[in-house]
């Protein structure tokens, strides 16, 4: 039977926390975890004795850093993307953390498609980063109701990228980002970063972990044989976080690991593993070096179709993400300074969602895909072609009085697609600091009487430049090939240039 125990905060005199001890705590890598009697928080004790530095670091984490992250404008948003410790406790010589319990949506409502095995368990990221658990022939696959659709994973990756971005902006590194330390919920398009207590402040607090297998940066693995204080030994830091972030985004979008291919680097299995993820790491989809392509015949059938990189290449994620994957896994793989930062991932993911089209096939597993710039587009996952003309809107900004330049930002139109402020005006940046007002659509696109139209809901100065006509609020303008629309005549207002794809289907 569980007995209720009590521990005292080392920060707030007199403050105590209760927890239920049944002698069988949940075991993490370094901590034993006990629930509060009402399950509103957990108390997690370090099994190893924590030294003075560590105590000081944890104290800062729950006081100074907590305040700077959450007790200021925009703090509520960040509260949702981290599971941040709130207090440090001590029991004898054992140090523990008080951490809020995860939100309800991070526990499986159904879990496996067949059987109750994991119902109510945490939605650890790996469940959603592996092809197996979504393969319809696999015995332990997840129920479809748990999987969300492809667009869900873009939103999830945006949240993770924002979480990493904020940490790095504060000069901190997570040091152990992995699918074990991020819970994700594709149903509600939600993600939260957990195990924050390993945070590293460069120069001040050294890391305790080198990371979790699959996410450890090549330079950390290839120098781990060196002594701890050897100047050439590489430790977890902001740049290794960026490797882990890139791996995670690749895995959540493509359900395979970017470095685990068929290349043999040593006949000793363990050494091969170390080299393949470390010193000799090579992107499985490297455009000119094909030596690490996955060998399909050697992989379990349950890894299909995602293990087949020729059928589902990373270019499916669109041009913006392709460029970043190249930077992360080709140029930056062994040159940490070249890795894309979290902000770049966030922006590329968001821009890519503007390229997405819903699949017309209601049975399609992914339901969404990225427009591939072809004249007769079809869903790459189920092969269903798009029916009818498809408007492609390219965004331009005013460079000089009469000179407009492309933004390298495109908006694909679909029925009931919304237009937002961040499309209209380049001074509005689509990020977590958007106000509620800015999240209200300013117009929408519709397929209406066999024509594509844009309905103006909130734009004061929308103008059809081709026909030289104002489009007042409450009216609509037809979307036709070659037409130019001025979305706003305010400072930062953009022009869209319309191209019709799929004209002859």
């Amino acid at each position, binding site marked *: 039977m569980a007995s209720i125990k009590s521990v005292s905060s080392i920060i707030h005199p007199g403050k105590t926390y209760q927890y239920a001890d049944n002698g069988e705590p949940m075991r993490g890598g370094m901590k034993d975890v006990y629930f509060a009697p009402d399950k509103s928080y957990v108390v997690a004790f370090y*099994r190893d004795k924590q030294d003075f530095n560590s105590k000081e670091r944890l104290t800062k984490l729950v006081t100074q850093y907590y305040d700077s992250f959450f007790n200021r404008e925009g703090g509520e948003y960040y509260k949702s993307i981290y599971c941040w410790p709130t207090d440090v406790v001590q029991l004898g010589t054992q140090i523990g953390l008080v951490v809020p319990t995860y939100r309800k949506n991070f526990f499986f409502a159904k879990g496996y498609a067949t059987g109750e*095995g994991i119902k109510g*368990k945490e939605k650890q990221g790996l469940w959603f980063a592996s092809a197996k658990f979504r393969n319809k022939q696999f015995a332990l696959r997840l129920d479809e109701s748990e999987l969300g659709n492809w667009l869900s994973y873009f939103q999830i990756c945006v949240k993770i990228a924002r979480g990493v971005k904020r940490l790095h902006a504060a000069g901190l590194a997570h040091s152990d980002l992995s699918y074990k330390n991020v819970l994700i919920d594709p149903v509600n398009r939600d993600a939260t970063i957990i195990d924050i207590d390993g945070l590293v402040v460069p120069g001040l607090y050294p890391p305790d972990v080198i990371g979790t297998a699959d996410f450890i940066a090549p330079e950390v693995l290839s120098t781990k044989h060196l002594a701890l204080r050897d100047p050439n030994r590489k430790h977890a830091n902001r740049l290794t976080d960026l490797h882990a972030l890139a791996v995670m985004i690749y895995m959540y979008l493509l359900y395979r690991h970017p470095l685990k291919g068929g290349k043999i680097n040593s006949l000793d299995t363990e050494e091969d593993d170390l080299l393949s993820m470390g010193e000799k790491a090579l992107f499985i989809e490297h455009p000119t070096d094909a030596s690490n392509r996955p060998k399909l015949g050697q992989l379990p059938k349950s890894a299909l179709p995602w293990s087949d990189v020729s059928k589902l290449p990373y270019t499916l994620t669109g041009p913006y993400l392709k460029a970043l994957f190249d930077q992360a896994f080709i140029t930056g793989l062994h040159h940490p300074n070249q890795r894309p930062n979290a902000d770049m991932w966030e922006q590329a993911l968001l821009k890519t969602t503007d390229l997405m089209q819903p699949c017309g096939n209601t049975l399609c597993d992914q339901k969404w895909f990225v427009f591939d710039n072809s004249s007769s587009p079809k869903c790459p996952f189920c092969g269903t072609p798009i029916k009818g003309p498809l408007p492609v809107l390219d965004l331009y900004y005013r460079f000089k009085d009469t000179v407009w330049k492309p933004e390298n930002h495109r908006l694909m139109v679909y029925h009931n697609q919304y237009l937002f402020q961040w499309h209209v005006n380049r001074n509005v940046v689509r990020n977590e600091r958007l106000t509620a007002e800015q999240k209200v659509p300013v117009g929408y696109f519709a397929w209406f009487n066999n024509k594509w139209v844009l309905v103006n809901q909130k734009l004061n100065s929308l103008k059809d430049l081709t026909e030289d006509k104002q489009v007042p609020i409450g009216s609509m303008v037809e979307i036709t090939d070659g037409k130019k629309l001025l979305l706003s005549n305010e400072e930062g207002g953009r022009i869209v240039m319309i191209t019709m794809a799929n004209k002859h289907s």
Partner: protein
Amino acid sequence: MTGEPIEAVKNGIQVMISSLRQNPQAIETAFISIITFDSTARQLVPLTDLASFQMVDIKASGTTSLGEALKLVSSCIDNEVAKTTQEQKGDWKPLVFIMTDGIPTDEWQSGLDEFRKRKTAYTVACAAGSGADSNLLKQITENVVSLDTADSQSISKFFSWVSASIGVTSTKVEDAGKEVSGLGELPPPPSELNIVT
């Protein structure tokens, strides 16, 4: 092994399998094989991935053919654990868990010699109950866990510890990358177990 201990082992394996089947890392990577030994040693389940693994009825009574079991596990490692070749990645080194409540009744030294030629990531021997000789098991592996009583509760604790050691966790910063060996590298066993040192 008879009576309560063998029932507890069966139950322990069942619990272990079901807990591993809730762990995505284990489902991705772990394969399981079961070998029993009494008057002879038999491989009851060949190396099988977790998702397809079906529990079978375990029987063990009478004598304790530990030597034969060690020989059998050696040949199973040779035949079923894939080695890395120029063409194909191999499997990781296996984890071997040996449970016994008795003293070997066969010529076990030659079996041990065979077993020693195989590389395992680690081998854990569990001496269940007062009949087992933990000093003898120490010759097989330095990792010997002794259950004072082979009752169902302590055996199930042993298996939940085994399950935890199969799961993947964050790798701690070590002074130099040593190969994992020795119990110090595993999650600590529950307090009711005694590690023989």
